[in-house]
Structures are given as C-alpha cells and as structure tokens.
C-alpha cells in the first residue's frame, strides 16, 4: 500500500514539472545564498583564527597596556615576580615605500620560536643568528618575497606557517626598525606558570588582562559587525527564498486534494499519507539543499575577493586562502533548508492533516476573509515595529540596531498586504471603464496569493534603498571629507629621515610651505592609537573637518596645551572636548576638538609637533604635504624629482591621492552591491513563481471574462499590468522603509560598528532607477504567464465551464 500511495503522490510531479522546478529552485536559492554567506563568514573567521594560531598565540591571554605601551622595565619586573610572559612589539615599518606589519618577539620566549628556529635551520642559519645584527625576518613566503624585494639588509626566512602580511623578527631587530627600544605593545601570558604567584591584577593594575578567547582574534572582534551584516543579508535572502517556496508547497498539496481524498477513501490511513508527504518534502528539501550548497559555494567563491577587499578596506584585516568546504556551513545549510522547507510547508501540511475526507474544493480566501487576515497581519506588523522601537530605545549597540532593523523589516512586510489592498481599492474607485475596474478588483483579489512575493520584493527594494543610501551618503561624505583633509597640493614621502630633513630644507629654500606629517604609534586602553604631530598652519584651521570643538580649539592645540581626537576614539571612549586623555604615562592633555576620520578603524589623535617631539624623541620624518599653486604642481613635482632621487610613487598630487582613496572606498562596497543585486534577483524570482503558482487558479477567473469577449492578448496585457501595479505599489512603500533603514544604518549601525556617524543624503535618481528595476522585475516575472495566456488553447479555457468540475 505504501508503494502504491507513494507512486500516486509522486505522479503529481510528472504532470507539474515546472512546479517541482520552482520548489527546488526556491529552496536551493534560499539555501544557496544563506550558505554562501555562511561560507564566507566561516572562511574569514577561520582565517583570523589561523592567523592567531600561526602566531602561536591562539590559546594565550594577553596583558594590554591601558595607555601607550609597556616599558621594558615593567616587563622585567613582572618576569621577576615569577610570571612567565612573552613580550610582543608591533608596528609598521616601511621599506622602499612599502609598509609591512612588524611583529617583534623575544625569540627565546615566544611560543612560535621552535617553528622559527626550524625554519632558520632549514636555511642553514642558526636560530641564534636571528638575535644578532643584521637579524632575520620571518614571513609567509608571499610576504617574504615582497620583503626581500623591498630590502636586502635583513635576511628573510620563508615560513609557510605564518599569516600573510606579517613580518616577524626578534625584538633586537624589531625594536630598532620601529625605533622603540624601551617599549612593548603587549605581553603574552605563557601557558605554564608556577603555582602560588601573586595575581597579575595586583602586580600590574595598569595592564588589562585580555582572556585567551577574546585575545585570540583581535581581528575577529573588529570585524564582527561586518560578519553580522553579512549574516543579516543571508537571512534576508533565506526568508525571501522561503516566501517562494511556501506558495508552491501549498499549491502542490492543494492540487492533490482530490487524490488525497480518493486515497483516503481507498483506505490509506492519514498517518501514512502525512508521513509520505513529509518524506517527499524532506527529499525535495535535501536535493534542493545540496543544489543550493553547490550554488552557494560558487557564489561565495565569486564574492570572496570582494569580501577580502571590504575587510581590507574597512579593517585592514586580511582573509587569505581559497574557499573550502567546512562541515559547519555545509550542515547548517542543509539543516536550514530542511527546517525552512518544513516551516514553509507547515501550514499546508497541517491543513492537510485536518482535511475531512469529503471536503469541497478549497476556494481562495477573498473578500472579507482576506481583509480580516490583512488586518491581523497589519496588527502583527505594527506590534513588531513597536517592539523594535522599544529595543532601540532601551538598548544600544550593534545587536540592538540589527534587532530593530529586523523588527522593522518584518513589521513593514506584515503591513504590506493591508496597505497594498487599500491602495488597490483607491485605484479601483478611480478606474474608468469596465476592464480597468475588473483589473483593479482582480488584482486585489489576487493579493493573498501574491503577498508573500510582494513582501519579498518590499524587503529587497528597501534593503537596496537603505544600503544604497548608506553607501552613497558615505561616499559623498567621504569625498567631501577627502577635500577637507587633503588640502596640501602635493604629498611627498622621503626614503629616509635624513633625506626627509634635506627635502624639507630644500623646499623651504624654494619658498614652498611644507607641512610635515609625523606620527607616533602607541596604544590607548589596549587598542592602537596613532598620534600625529602637526605644524600649525592656516590650512588646518580653515580645512580640518572638526565635528565638535571647544572655542579656541586651534590656539589651544597648536600651543601643545590640548589635542584633537578622531570621532571613533571619541565615541569608543565617550570622550568630548574637555575630557582628558593620557597619551603616554605622564602625558595627559585635554581634548579640544573631535574630527571626522572615515575609513580608519583605529583611534587617532593630533597634537602640535613640538609637543610630540618633546615626548617622543626621534620621530620618523618622511611624510610631507606641500602647498602650491595648482598651476605649479606639475612643475614642482618635476623639480623635486630632478633634485631628489626617489621613486615615482613617492610623490603624488592631491588628485591622485583622492582617486586612489575613492577607488579603495568603492572596492570596499563591492560586496554590498553584489548582495543587493542578488536579493533583488531573488525577489524577482519570488514574484515569478507566485505568478506561476497562481496560474492554474487564475483560469476560472479569466475564462468568463474571455467568454465575454476580452481577447487573450488583452488578458495577457492585463496580467503584466497587474504585476506592474503590485510592484509599483510595493516599490512606493519600500521607499520610506528604505530611508528608515538607511537612517538606522548611518546613525546606529555605523556608529556601533565603525565608530562614526554619517549625515544622510537623498538620491532620488537612484530611487527612480530602482523603481524602474522593480518594474522591470515585475514585467519579467509576468512575462512567462502572460505569454502562456496569450497563446492558451481556448479548449483549456472552456474546461472551466465544464459542468463536472
């Protein structure tokens, strides 16, 4: 009996292959985008973890200085108290105009030492040579190649186990390169400690103890927000995919009601039937899940470079390696697909379970029943939005921001049917002509079957508007900010401090204003802080993008009595003009102003150059900004090149710097644009499948109209129009939703994720483009059903009138 019943159930798909294809495609899409995002996240996380592991510091806690750095005398004291600690000094070094992240370690203490020693021995050097001049740099072979090219002074040892981009060296070399002979960035707490030592908190109250898990991936923490972002996108796509599937599952069961009744009257128990349907759905979901995973893998592989660009652009974090299948996202993807399929099919399966043997064919919910369900859905939507607002009001931060966004999007989606329905009745009232009236009324009648697809479209459009507005606002702000920040006409980087001094001297002799840009890297409350020393110049006073300032900000700062900090530092540590900041132990200055500093994940401060020089001797002096008449720029550059022998890249004019910065910016948001387009595509597909799903239910409504003399072509046109009306209505409603979304992204999410708040700009042309895109999607979605309708055999329409229906 089981076999026979199963065959009967499955025979449905032979007659409805398109339906099966839709079902599988919908589920596969949902699974695909979700697992693509998960794959990307897993890859990035694994990459961060690998980096920590490769540095040998994976399971180790850290001691991080609250201010600046740790003096080595302090390190010695802590060692002498018995704690086994390994010192680390981090910084950036330029060789031949290329920057490298240097990680200085005590080769005698660092956990990674055995691997380094082995690598050195493999190159027939003794590990101890790395402790003596000229030292030795250890790096991943890619980085090593760059290093060997950029400098020849220090031999470079290739070590595949090190993360890309990091140059590891003994502290004897690193402290010299970084010009930090007496200070350390942080201390690793080594695994084996003798018992009975005084607690670190007591011995070193000025150092923050970062537990192993938190310390393990600095990058991981920094980029969490980005990954949360991706996950939100993935979830959105997944939900949209389920919208597609829900209708199809419902229809496939609906169409088999007759068969179910027959089978039941033939004595097949309901329990068995339900089991068979569940098994069928599970099998389809599994097949779709596997297809989706394959697709997801491809999508992820295609997106990964974009993700890398984004991460590099926003956080300076690098994700290396190619994509690999990880059980984590593979199984979660399959589980999500199965769960999603049952979630989408739950209502239909439940209805099936309760189907009486002799039920009349189902009719679509329409009229009052439909409007009652619209009201209920709208009520839930309003409640959801209210809940989101409450969360946003009472909680701060990234998760609250995303929770609000989720609630807002869900709420708006639930409100949609009521709003569209109201819009359609207005349309119907204003319609002239019988056909138009019928069209509006019929569109409204179709709403229940379309509303899930429309919700998907609404979400996709709103996400597009929101994210698009965010990115465009960011770009506009960023461009304006670049104009302010990059006020010097020419930027020059000398190859050495000596050359720098010579250059500055020569330029001044030429009567050119030289603004040297010198900085000192330190740490503030455990996070990197770069302190710039600037020379007082009118240009700063008139250009620098201050967001908040005390009255005589420039006089105070220029005289060394105060400092300026960037917005991220201000927000992260709740600093404002008037707050006191300790740059180095014993050097405390009040904040006089806060300036915007987009695209920089780290804290930054500006003090007057003489003050910085006083506290930090031997600052590197290689970067200069030159003021020049715009017409003279080319000549000036040529002159400098003639006079000084340095590489072409070391002199850039303002325009080039701006172009490059914007290029980096644009690369940063490649992934966002790609995901946006994908979501919109999925929504378009949802529209198509719901129209196809409605197709067979549409004929009984179309046949009488056709019999009254409306041609099939007119009906087809009406079909497209209907889709257009719905898409247009949805797009109109998506606009305010998208703008709210943009506002939350700019004012809540960005602040929490990056530490800067951005003004919001409106881009009506983008909206128009998106509106057209939505209409295009609607036309494409309606094209197939319309085409089928225009060429339908009258006999198929006449079947509607057959009495024995």
């Amino acid at each position, binding site marked *: 009996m089981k076999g026979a019943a199963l065959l009967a159930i499955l025979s449905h798909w032979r007659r409805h292959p398109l339906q099966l294809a839709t079902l599988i495609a919908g589920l596969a899409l949902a699974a695909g985008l979700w697992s693509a995002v998960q794959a990307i996240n897993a890859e990035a996380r694994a990459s961060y973890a690998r980096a920590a592991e490769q540095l040998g510091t994976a399971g180790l806690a850290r001691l991080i200085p609250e201010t600046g750095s740790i003096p*080595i*005398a302090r*390190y*010695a*004291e802590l*060692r*002498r*108290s*018995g704690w*086994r600690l390994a010192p680390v000094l981090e910084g950036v070094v330029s060789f031949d105009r290329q920057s490298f992240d240097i990680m200085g370690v*005590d*080769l*005698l*203490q*660092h*956990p990674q*030492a*055995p691997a380094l*020693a*082995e690598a050195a*021995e493999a190159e027939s050097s*003794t*590990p*101890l040579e790395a*402790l*003596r001049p000229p030292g030795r740099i250890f790096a991943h072979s890619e980085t090593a190649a760059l290093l060997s090219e950029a400098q020849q002074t220090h031999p470079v040892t290739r070590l595949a186990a090190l993360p890309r981009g990091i140059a590891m060296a*003994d*502290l*004897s070399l690193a*402290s*010299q390169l970084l010009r930090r*002979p*007496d200070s350390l960035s942080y201390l690793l707490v080594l695994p*084996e400690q*003798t*018992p*009975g030592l005084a607690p670190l908190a007591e011995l070193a109250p000025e150092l923050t103890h970062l537990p192993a898990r938190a310390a393990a991936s600095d990058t991981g923490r920094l980029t969490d927000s980005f990954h949360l972002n991706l996950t939100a996108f993935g979830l959105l796509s997944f939900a949209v995919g389920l919208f597609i599937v829900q209708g199809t599952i419902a229809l496939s069961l609906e169409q088999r009601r007759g068969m179910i009744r027959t089978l039941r009257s033939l004595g097949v128990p309901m329990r068995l039937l339900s089991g068979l349907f569940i098994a069928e759905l599970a099998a389809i979901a599994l097949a779709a899940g596997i297809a989706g995973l394959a697709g997801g893998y491809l999508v992820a592989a295609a997106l990964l470079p974009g993700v890398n660009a984004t991460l590099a652009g926003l956080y300076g974090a690098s994700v290396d390696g190619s994509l690999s299948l990880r059980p984590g996202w593979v199984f979660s993807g399959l589980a999500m697909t199965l769960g999603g399929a049952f979630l989408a099919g739950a209502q239909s399966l439940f209805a099936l379970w309760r189907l009486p043997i002799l039920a009349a064919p189902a009719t679509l919910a329409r009229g009052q029943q439909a409007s009652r369900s619209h009201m209920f859905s709208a009520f839930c939507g309003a409640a959801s939005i209210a809940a989101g607002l409450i969360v946003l009001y009472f909680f701060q931060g990234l998760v609250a921001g995303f929770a609000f966004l989720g609630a807002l999007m869900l709420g708006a989606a639930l409100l949609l049917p009521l709003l569209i329905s109201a819009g359609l009745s207005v349309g119907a009232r204003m319609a002239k002509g019988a056909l138009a009236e019928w069209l509006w009324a019929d569109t409204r009648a179709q709403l229940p079957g379309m509303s899930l697809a429309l919700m998907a479209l609404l979400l996709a459009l709103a996400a597009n508007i929101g994210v698009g507005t965010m990115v465009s606002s960011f770009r506009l702000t960023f461009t304006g900010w670049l104009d302010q920040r990059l006020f010097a006409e020419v930027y020059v980087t000398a190859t050495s401090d000596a050359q720098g001094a010579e250059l500055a001297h020569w330029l001044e002799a030429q009567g050119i204003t030289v603004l040297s840009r010198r900085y000192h890297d330190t740490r503030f409350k455990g996070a990197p802080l770069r302190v710039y020393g600037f020379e007082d110049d009118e240009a700063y006073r008139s250009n620098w993008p201050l967001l908040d300032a005390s009255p005589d900000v420039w006089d105070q700062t220029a005289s060394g009595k105060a400092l300026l900090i960037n917005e991220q530092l201000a927000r992260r540590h709740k600093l404002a003009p008037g707050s006191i900041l300790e740059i180095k132990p014993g050097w405390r200055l009040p904040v006089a102003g806060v300036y915007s500093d987009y695209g920089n994940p780290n804290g930054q401060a500006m003090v007057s150059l003489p003050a910085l020089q006083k506290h930090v001797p031997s600052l590197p002096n290689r970067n200069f900004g030159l003021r020049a008449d715009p017409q003279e720029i080319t000549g000036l550059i040529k002159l400098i090149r003639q006079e000084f022998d340095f590489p072409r890249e070391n002199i850039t004019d303002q325009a080039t710097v701006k172009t490059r910065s914007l290029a980096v910016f644009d690369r940063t948001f490649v992934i966002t644009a790609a995901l946006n387009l994908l979501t919109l595509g999925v929504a378009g597909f949802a529209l198509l499948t719901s129209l196809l799903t409605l197709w067979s239910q549409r004929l009984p409504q179309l046949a009488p109209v056709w019999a009254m003399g409306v041609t099939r072509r007119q009906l087809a046109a009406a079909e497209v129009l209907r889709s257009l009306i719905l898409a247009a209505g949805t797009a109109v409603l998506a606009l305010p939703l998208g703008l709210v979304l943009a506002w939350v992204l700019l004012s809540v999410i960005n602040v929490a994720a990056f530490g800067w708040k951005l003004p919001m700009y409106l881009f009506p042309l983008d909206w128009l483009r998106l509106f057209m895109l939505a209409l295009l999607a609607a036309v494409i979605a309606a094209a197939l059903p319309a085409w089928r309708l225009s060429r339908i055999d009258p006999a198929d329409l006449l079947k509607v009138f057959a009495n024995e229906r």
Partner: protein
Amino acid sequence: MNANIILVASSLIWATAVQPQGYAGLGTDAEGFAIPKPDTRLTFPADHGLHSDFRIEWWYLTANLEGADGADYGIQWTLFRSALAPGEAAGWQSPQIWMAHAAVTTKDKHLFAERIARGGVGQAGVQTHPFSAWIDNWQMRSADETLEEISLSASGMEFSYDLNLMADGPLVLQGNAGYSVKSASGQASHYYSQPHYMVSGTLSLPDGPIDVTGHGWLDREWSSQPLAEDQSGWDWFSLSFDSGEKLMGFVLRGARGDFTSGTWISADGTAEPLAPGAFQAQPLNISDVQGREMPTHWHASVPDKGVSVEILALNPQSWMGTSFSYWEGPVAVIGSHSGKGYLEMTGYE
C-alpha cells in the same frame, strides 16, 4: 617548548669545542672573546660578578641537605651566561643570553625546572653591589658584596625552595690560583669555589614543605673554550668528607685519552691542586637513565691522600631533562672516607 632555540643556546655554553685553537696567545679568539690567562689574578668582589668579555660563565650551587624527617635531599641552583658576542649592550641589543636550572632530588624523586632570558632588559643578570644573581624570580642574593651570607630561591611547577647559606670557610681558588686547565692542549677556565656553606631553609615539595639543613658548595667558572676538540663530556665530583676535608675532581673524557684534574681542600680551607692523573674515577655500576647507560656508582681514588671511596647516587635517576640535558645529583661517599657530595655527568648521549 622553545627546545630548539635553547638547545642551540646551550650548545654555546657547553660545546665550544668547535672553536679554532691557537688564539690563546693573543688573549682573544676569532670572535673577540677573551681567553683565560694563567697570570690573571682573581679579585673580589669584582670577580663574583659577570665577565662579559668571556663567552660562557656560571654560578653553580649544589647542596646536600637533611630534612627534619631524617631523609636526604639535594638541591641545585645554576645560572648560566652565554654570550653571542663579547661585551654588553642596552636593551634587546644585548648579546648576553641567560639560562638557569634548578632541581630538588630525593631518594625517589628528581624535580627540576629551567628558565631562559635575554640580557639587557633586566629579566636576568648579575650585579655585585650588593651581590645578586637572578633570572625571573629565581635568585641568589647577598646583603653585601661578599658571598659570605647568601639567600637562594627558585621554583618550578612542582617544587620551590628558599634557603639561607652561610660560609664557614674561605673561598677556594681552583687549579693554579683560579686558572683551571681543562685539556692537555691547554683549554682552561677561571674557576673558584665556596665549598663551605652551612645551609638551612625550606623545601616545598608536592607532599608539603619540609625544613632542611646541610652543606652547600658554590662553583664559579668562566671561560671561552672549556673543552678540547676530542672531548665529549665530563664526570665531575664535589665531595665533602665527614673529616672536614673536601675533594673536587673531574674527568674530561676524550677520544685521545681522559684528562683528569682536581683540588684537595683541607679542613681549614687550604686548597692544593692535584697533579694531572692524581685523581682517578672508575664506574662500578651502570644504571639505565632515561634510556641511557650511565655510571651512577663510582670508585674514586687519590692515592696521595689515601682516598679510595665508593660514590653512590642518592637517586640514580637524577636526570636533568632540560633543553640541554645531563645528570646532576647528590651522592653518598663510603670507603676510606665517608661523606656526601654532588656528581655531574655530561655528554652521555
């Protein structure tokens, strides 16, 4: 964990045999390290401190102790210095590398620990005013610049100790007024000892703390080339007899014949270098120590002094499984003289 690095660091301390010969006359070797000279006269307190012109140096203290429970214990506290280049520099540029070993030995347990450090940053070092030698929280400290009265501490994962040592006799210059020849071809070191310490203090062992008293022996030695090319290791004895006399003797095992030397210290502290070959030691019994065959039972003799004794390891498994590994442990002496002492055996691979 840092096995490789430390191994190489240790190899610098122990196996400088590869250094070319023949620079002795110039006073420095090829890399600029000073060479021990027979006419050097040791001066104190300066020579308690470090000699950074020499490649290697150590502060080596062992003690035979008796617990309040009547059981025998031995402790070791050693600070090695090894230089990558002569001289000292500030901070991470310092060429000095420090390594320390500490151990506690009982009849059936041998607990040990190791520490390693850079010079220049203060994690390890030796200073003379007042005297202090340290690495991390292990230290040997005096209240003044002499070594008359010192405190000693070290700790490992399973043990720690805190001891006070009081000298009961004068410093002893080994070899020829502190110039100790190590091979027939002339390798030598500067070497003096304080073998007369009265020790009291506390050991902390896995079973709990225990008060101890006993006798300690400090060796100070520095050089740039202690072993000859053909020498593979040594067996070194420091013995304190119940009569109050003391014997330091060593055998440097070489492919071209063993080189033995020693010092006889009479009860009043007068030192008398033994003629080459006057000290003899033969293994009596071999133990399996961590897969190696090692003599943990010896016969030693100094016919001139009427010494003919058997030397028995308190714990034959006194293996220092540190990055450079060797055997070091307390021994009991019976025979013509009875007493206690320490035995060190290196180069058994």
